[in-house]
């Protein structure tokens, strides 16, 4: 049954990949949505079965995959509470985004449409393998597989150089992370002779937590390097903002809700292992909070609607890593889950805006969309409130849980930075809301903005309604003027007729908005009279199970019976409920203040923000240019490697040094090669004679000895 979950989208992929170009859009899109919904249903049933089972898990070994000596890796899937949450997010949110895409991508040709959905289905299949894999190598199949789909989907509009570049950048940066993941796996296998998650956990549980730079610390750091790649953390976050070149639903599904959370999930999957490496955990928390702050500050000044959301995603992922780093695994996963709703909502909302404005992505060219796009506006505001952490929306509970756990673990500096980030989050989100939806309509500005989504300028804009109609589709596609896109044409700032999201998109926005409001129900803390069910539900996933044979040598502290509840940092029994309530009030206050700042700067008067930007121009430019990290990487890593390889290695070592020596020898025997050339007569008899001569010479030489 478990195999069915990834298999269904895979079947969808195969159908659309092989037959897609002959199918009408209704069929190819329909199949893609259908397999996702079916996979969701199977996931739901499986999760229910698993939650009732022993160990709260079900496992399925499909076949024996890699066998080499003692290295035996079965292709095995395992569904435990943690995986249940993830597969429901992936198939649930995934289904919604598939449905949304049927409308969003409608302007593509049939074959491009099918190609899009085949990639999207393939992504879902790999993501589900990643989540369900019972051992590291199977997870790695999904891990690199989703990277591939991300590559393909970022570069979906492959004619556009920036899109193709962004896809390649994503893949290569992820490969740097995967290098760490790979070595981490090797080190773990060399240490524990197994790569099964459960077996590793139970073997680790017999050790004492490592005080220093031991093998567990190194292995977990290597794995974390993989996580920084996939989940866009410092130092490997640089690919995610560029990944916004992909279609917006892709940004929502892959680069917000699911794939980028894989790193967080991986740490949760190996909670016992990471708990035994406190140094690593400290680094994870530090990187997480630093990334959260850095991305938040960049998000404050970006002008591309999707890039703001991208930096916001990086920032929120930082929160999740902060949670993991302080050992609050359940809180991290809880935030992952709520974030999937509201960030998907925000991206899809931005997609509806872009759709309505025929490809416009620059906030400076928006404004006043509230009236024309009421559904988009209201759902977007709900998403913004949720991510800002306003009570009682879902984001409030999950973000607050992380901040509280950080505080109660004694990392008050990190808590303070987290709080500052929460403030920034509220500010940049509402800056976006006000710039896009409030104030005057400004979208009559020239569309030739580098960050726009339309591929190259050759879009036959003329036959449509003005330059703005150069929609986000591939140019040679015989484009049927889509009402939603075409009527976005505006005339000298006068509000033209805007079309709100078409039904398939609107329904998805509304469902996600409801989710963004209500998803927090499962994690209402005890301090507010809730029971934090998700924490209790997830708990078995963060513990080692006593299935491994007890090894007396390393057995430490935990007495048999209550087998290490490592994931739980004994929360509410010890913590002061009063403190928790105060902290809650503080973070809520900060969020409100953040929104207030946005109101002050951007709601009525935009002048204020510009004055601030001018008075702190260097800082503003630094943020606008994203701390120049891309340029730094290029100058410090990319160019030296490129130049060094060309001049030093290829033209230096290879051509001059080695070949120089070889040709020197060659020159010495030029006479010989000259006669060889003459031998080449093309006559078979001559060749046969030379063959024979060779044999004779060899034999003769041998016999003479």
């Amino acid at each position: 049954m478990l195999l069915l979950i990834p298999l269904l989208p895979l079947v969808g992929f195969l159908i659309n990949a092989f037959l897609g170009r002959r199918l009408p859009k209704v069929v190819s899109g329909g199949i893609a949505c259908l397999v996702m919904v079916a996979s969701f249903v199977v996931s739901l049933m499986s999760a229910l079965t698993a939650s009732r089972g022993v160990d709260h898990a079900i496992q399925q070994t499909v076949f024996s995959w890699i066998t080499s000596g003692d290295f035996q890796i079965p292709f095995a899937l395992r569904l435990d509470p943690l995986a249940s949450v993830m597969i429901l997010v992936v198939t649930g949110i995934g289904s919604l985004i598939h449905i949304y895409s049927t409308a969003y991508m409608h302007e593509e040709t049939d074959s491009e449409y099918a190609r899009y959905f085949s990639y999207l289905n393939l992504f879902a299949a790999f993501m589900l393998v990643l989540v369900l894999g019972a051992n590291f190598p199977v997870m790695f199949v999904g891990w690199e597989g989703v990277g591939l789909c991300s590559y393909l989907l970022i570069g979906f509009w492959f004619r556009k150089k920036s899109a193709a570049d962004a896809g390649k950048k994503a893949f290569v940066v992820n490969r740097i992370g995967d290098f760490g993941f790979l070595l981490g796996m090797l080190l773990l296998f060399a240490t524990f002779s197994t790569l099964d998650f459960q077996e590793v956990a139970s073997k680790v549980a017999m050790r004492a937590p490592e005080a220093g730079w031991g093998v567990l610390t190194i292995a977990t750091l290597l794995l974390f390097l993989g996580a920084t790649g996939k989940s866009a953390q410092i130092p490997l976050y640089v690919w995610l903002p560029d990944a916004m070149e992909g279609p917006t639903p892709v940004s929502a599904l892959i680069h917000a809700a699911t794939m980028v959370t894989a790193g967080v999930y991986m740490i949760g999957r190996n909670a016992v292992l990471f708990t035994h490496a406190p140094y690593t955990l400290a680094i994870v928390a530090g990187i997480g909070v630093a990334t959260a702050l850095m991305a938040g500050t960049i998000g404050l000044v970006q002008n591309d609607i999707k890039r703001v959301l991208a930096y916001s995603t990086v920032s929120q992922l930082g929160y999740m890593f902060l949670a993991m780093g302080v050992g609050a695994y359940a809180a991290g996963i809880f935030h992952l889950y709520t974030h999937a709703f509201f960030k998907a909502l925000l991206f899809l909302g931005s997609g509806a805006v872009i759709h309505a404005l025929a490809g416009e992505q620059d906030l400076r060219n928006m404004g006043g969309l509230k009236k024309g796009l009421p559904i988009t506006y209201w759902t977007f505001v709900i998403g913004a409130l949720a991510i800002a952490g306003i009570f009682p929306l879902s984001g409030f509970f999950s973000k607050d849980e992380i901040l509280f756990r950080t505080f109660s673990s004694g990392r008050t500096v990190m808590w303070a930075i987290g709080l500052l980030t929460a403030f920034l989050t509220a500010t940049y989100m509402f800056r976006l809301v006000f710039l896009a939806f409030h104030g005057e309509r400004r979208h009559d500005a020239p569309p030739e903005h580098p960050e726009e989504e339309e591929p190259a300028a050759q879009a036959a804009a003329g036959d449509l309604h003005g330059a703005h109609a150069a929609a986000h589709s591939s140019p040679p596609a015989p484009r049927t003027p889509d009402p939603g896109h075409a009527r976005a044409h505006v005339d000298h700032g006068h509000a033209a007729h805007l079309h709100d999201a078409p039904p398939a998109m609107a329904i998805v926005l509304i469902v996600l908005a409801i989710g963004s409001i209500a998803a927090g129900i499962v994690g209402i803390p005890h301090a507010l009279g809730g029971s934090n069910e998700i924490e209790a539900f997830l708990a078995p996933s963060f513990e080692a199970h006593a299935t491994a044979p007890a090894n007396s040598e390393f057995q430490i502290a935990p007495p048999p019976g209550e087998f290490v509840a490592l994931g739980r940092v004994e929360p509410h029994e010890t913590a002061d409920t009063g403190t928790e309530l105060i902290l809650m009030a503080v973070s809520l206050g900060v969020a409100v203040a953040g929104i207030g700042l946005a109101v002050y700067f951007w709601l009525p008067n935009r002048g204020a923000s510009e004055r601030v930007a001018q008075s702190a121009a260097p800082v503003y430019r630094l943020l606008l240019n994203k701390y120049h990290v891309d340029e730094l990487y290029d100058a410090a890593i990319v160019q030296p490697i490129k130049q060094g390889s060309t001049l030093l290695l290829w033209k230096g070592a290879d051509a001059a040094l080695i070949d120089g020596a070889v040709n020197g020898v060659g020159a010495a025997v030029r006479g010989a090669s000259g006669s060889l050339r003459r031998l080449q007569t093309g006559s078979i008899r001559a060749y046969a004679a030379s063959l024979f001569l060779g044999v004779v010479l060899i034999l003769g030489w041998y016999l003479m000895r």
Partner: protein
Amino acid sequence: MLSTIVFLPLVGAVLVLLLGGRGDRAEREPIVRYAALAVSLVSFASTLWLWMQFNASTAEFQFVEQHEWLPQFGISYHLGVDGISLFLVVLTGFLTPLALLTSWQSVHESVKLFSFFMLVLETAMLGVFVSLDLFLFYIFWDAVLIPMYFLIGIWGYERRIYAAVKFILYTMVGSILMLVAIIGLGYAHASSTGTLSFDLLQLYGTALSRTMETWFFLAFTLAFVIKVPLFPFHTWLPDAHVEAPTAGSVILAGVMLKMGTYGLLRFAFPLFPTAAAEFAPYIAALAVVGIVYGALVAMVQPDMKKLVAYSSVSHLGFVVLGLCAVNVNGVQGAVYQMLNHGVSTGGLFIIVGMLSDRRHTRLISEYGGLKAVMPRLVAAFLLITLSSIALPGMNGFIGEFLILLGAFRWHPKVAAIAATGVILSAVYMLWMFQRVNYGDVTNEENRRLPDLSPREWAIMIPTIATAIAMGIFPGVFLKPMEPAVVRVVDRIHGTLPAAASTRSPGSGLRASDESSTLAPRPAADSPLISTLGSRPSALGPRSSRIGQR
């Protein structure tokens, strides 16, 4: 039976010559082509039959044929396959028909002779992989050079003569030294046992002085690493590849390079285990340098064929690294990677050939935006690219992972450096893929290129299907391979402690390890694991001996 399989292509080659009639007649071209293809397909079927009949549970050589040939010199006609050579035989059978098919559009002069050389080449390559007599092996080894020399020299591109001569000279230098070592080894055997022999199984464990063993090992190894090619002996390869016709490149990369790594595994290491232990770290160091170096140089190549050629240097570095680890994972991964490289690099050369058939240029800058023009060809290109960069689920991953695992158990830091090749391969392959296929069609000549023809489908489908199948069901290949791998690892290790101390000229020590452990052993290097597990500081470099047993 093996003789039939080996010489079937040769017989076919003669047949093709006869069918072609006198001279170079164009109207006979189709007949010649189909005949050659049919011969190669029958040959492939025969290798598959061999696989079907193969007993996967034993490490012994199977289908053994042994006849006296020149008994006064101890030379016999001795053939056999084990789990290692079996798949190289199948690979040869698999790639030859594909290579022949690639030539249908590009080769038009002397098709008869071309087909003849291709089939002769196949026989020679098969002979290399199944010979169990060193003299016989040497004959096949050198016989491979002749048809390849002509294939490059006659049907190659502009600088073909330079490339062909460079290829011959490079390889001959190694070969001649190997011949001397073979003869020397035979005589050393005679002096310790009284009988002259060139039989591989008898020569295993021949008593040698340290000096002799070292020199023999170096002579063999030089011949093999030139063939691989290992950095810094690789500069013949880019030239040979660039100038060779597509079919030649496919066979050269797909099969011939493996003769080098096969030779290391079958001859150099187990015949001279003490010397192998001594030199393996240096060879591994060159392999790791080659992995990184090949990848970096591949990255900046403007010519697609050169790029793929340098990527071969990188990939073959992985294979050699796996061999030098001398444990089950490393060696098994290395053998697997030999097959992978045959499929994926063979596939890449085929794709590049298809492009240059259409445009008559291999320069990356001449292309761009092909995805819009030839979506199917580009899809095939993508899949082969993914196979080459070792995406999990494709064949390359299994090989690289096992090699890295084997290397890691031997020497973690070496494995870590080698693993950077995983990053670099993505850089150079995806960069090429992007420049060729993405973006706008910038060159007008590219706008009307035809997509895959039926003949090209027939080439690409088996290649891609194999790449995927080998990634999902590696057990099909790994299981029959394992007993032989365990045997060879044992052989290299097994003689280590005893032979190193007791071995002296004339001591009469005979190989008795034929009967040594047959059952697959768990963890070749268990002490290493426990060291790593308990002592984190053990991550540092260790003693450079092979295997920590």
